[in-house]
């Protein structure tokens, strides 16, 4: 069943149809929230809250945009709001890989090279720092395009802005990340 049909039935009070939408979008919702918060529990809470809000306000969804852009907007707004309330975000969890015991990494990666892994860990830390210090909307645009694979047109719809603005955000984000890696080496 297509999203539009499920939404229409959910608007009539069929919760089971909305539960199908939950199953369809839960991974994406969780990953968006995780990219913003870098904390699994917070990401779970935020993305679940997004589903609850979407269901409570489903009657306001008029179908002018697709369900997923409307829903992504709820997720992104919750994440931006969360970021505003918790200025320091725990980005360190992304470094879990670099913090794993050496033996585990050695086993997991056949092309294991300690020096390269150390550099990779450091580079990842710098990337995360750069993302953290980035303006929130710039970061949102970058995460939605790069991490979630949304088109620029969809990112613009989610962020309620123009495609031109998203292009600028994206370019600035990539430029900042490039700069952080140049400094790193």
């Amino acid at each position: 069943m297509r999203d539009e049909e499920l939404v229409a039935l959910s608007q009539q009070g069929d919760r089971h149809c909305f539960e199908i939408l939950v199953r369809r979008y839960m991974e994406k919702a969780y990953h968006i929230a995780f990219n913003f918060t870098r904390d699994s529990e917070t990401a779970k809470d935020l993305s679940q809250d997004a589903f609850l809000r979407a269901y409570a306000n489903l009657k306001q969804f008029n179908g002018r945009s697709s369900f997923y852009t409307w829903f992504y907007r709820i997720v992104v707004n919750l994440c931006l709001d969360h970021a505003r309330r918790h200025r320091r975000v725990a980005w360190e969890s992304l470094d879990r890989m670099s913090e794993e015991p050496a033996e585990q990494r050695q086993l997991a990666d056949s092309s294991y090279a300690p020096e390269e892994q150390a550099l990779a860990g450091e580079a990842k830390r710098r990337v995360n720092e750069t993302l953290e210090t980035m303006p929130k909307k710039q970061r949102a645009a970058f995460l939605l395009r790069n991490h979630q694979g949304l088109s620029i047109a969809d990112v613009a719809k989610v962020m309620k802005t123009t495609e031109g603005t998203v292009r600028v955000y994206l370019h600035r984000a990539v430029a900042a990340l490039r700069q952080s890696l140049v400094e790193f080496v």
Partner: protein
Amino acid sequence: MKNSAPLETACKQYEEDLVLHYYGENGDNERRRVEQHLTSCHSCRRFLGDLQRVLPQMAGAEEMPQAFWDNYYRETVSKLAEQEERKFWWRSLFNPMRTWMAPAFGTVAVAVLVVGLVIGKGNLRLFVEPRGESIPREILADQNQLEFFESMDMLEALDRLENQDDQKTDTTNGESNRAELPGVVA
């Protein structure tokens, strides 16, 4: 990130186009222009290569086990149900499963009705006869008194009619007497 080499600096005027090119977001003309430039510009080729190497690694999402997603789904569905229950709490009162509720509601409704009627009746009496402002019994007109006054009015009206008749008779008699006496002419 296995290769941590720095990202190559690209030509300034092509940098944004290269980012869009990487994401496949530029139009046909722009794409052709960038591709043409790439054939002759080593720096931009390196820059694009770095984007292709670094950006996908940043996007790598942490794989979660299926148990996590099952639990996530169950929790979300449960929260949705709770939210709906809070929104439509009154529906639970009419839940067919709660069969004992119907007679209980009926009894309560009858009791409320009886109490309401009793209290309402008392209030009505109080309204008709407000306490502390009782009218003296002497003044209160009962049915007999009303009939008495009505008959009195009627008798008085008859008296008045009789008097009027008497006055008319007297006047007529006086005029006839004057006509009989010839000396009394005005």
